[in-house]
């Protein structure tokens, strides 16, 4: 015969009808000494870093047709819905005039003259070089040069600078002008 084992629960003598009370068991706590810690678990950090990296790479690899907007180049907002078409780009920032991101004339160099024939020789030279390059590319089977030019300008650019840039571009084999503007977000 096997002797009956003592049950884990005990009834209190003063309350025989009460619910059985369990003995409290202490939860074992994991306390490691400094010698026992062998390394951090890096998996969670790896996950977080990978997600961050993927997000940043996706944001970085943007459409090449987009323009980076900053304090010195903030084009005006427009309600136009025509999508941008790539072309030779002339940029007028708060500091100067650039052709394909290369500074050609600083605005400090410019002055105002009472003549309608005024144009910018340095800009004209840069645009002629750009047009020749586009024609060479076309001659080697590349994209056709259609004389199109994109003008990206800061919102505070005075009108006479704009028209002078357009006039100069007209003297440098460019005949189609497109203004590039920020799309107005529908609210």
């Amino acid at each position, binding site marked *: 015969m096997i002797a009956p084992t003592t049950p884990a629960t005990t009834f209190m003598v003063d309350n025989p009808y009460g619910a059985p009370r369990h003995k409290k068991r202490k939860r074992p706590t994991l306390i490691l000494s400094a010698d026992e810690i062998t390394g951090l678990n890096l998996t969670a950090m790896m996950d977080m870093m990978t997600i961050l990296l993927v997000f940043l790479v996706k944001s970085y690899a943007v459409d090449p047709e987009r323009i980076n907007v900053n304090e010195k180049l903030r084009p005006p907002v427009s309600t136009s819905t*025509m999508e941008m078409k790539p072309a030779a780009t002339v940029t007028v920032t708060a500091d100067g005039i650039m052709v394909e991101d290369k500074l050609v004339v600083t605005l400090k160099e410019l002055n105002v003259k009472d003549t309608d024939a005024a144009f910018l020789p340095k800009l004209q030279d840069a645009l002629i070089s750009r047009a020749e390059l586009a024609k060479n590319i076309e001659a080697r089977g590349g994209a056709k040069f259609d004389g199109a030019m994109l003008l990206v300008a800061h919102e505070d650019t*005075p*009108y006479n600078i704009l028209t002078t840039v357009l006039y100069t571009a007209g003297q440098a084999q460019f005949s189609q002008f497109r203004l590039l503007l920020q799309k107005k977000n529908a609210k």
Partner: protein
Amino acid sequence: MSGGGSEAGEELNLIPYLDIMVNLVIFLIFSFQIVVEMVRIELLSPAYGGAAGSSGGDENKMLTVVVTNEGYTLLSVDPSVRGQETVPLKGTKHDVDALHAKLVELKDMFHLGNAMILTAESGVPYKTIVETMDAARTDGAIDLFPDVLLARSGPAVSQ
């Protein structure tokens, strides 16, 4: 038997990989710039300016909008169209709503084409020019003056 050099319980050393990741993330965060969606406005070239009549209206009745520091002035090359209209400033800003209403009225009254000439005083900012173009482009779904020819006025800039 031990196949390969690694033991079963050994973990990969992730620290060099993490170093690369941290450097990449820091580089990308610092080189991150705001990019916005862009649209375009096609300008009429002076050589094509006379083709405004092809859009349905009379090419002799092309309207000219002059942006000044006092507001807008509307001119026409055709004397049969009202000679000159002005839209004064609304406070300190150009009144694009009043300009729009005036353009709608003139377009209907004189059967004008889709092209207009836009010119401004030399110091008028680009932002105001674009606002004017936006006000003149459409009236709801109907084209108003979507073809704009920019004309120079006043002193030009030179090096």
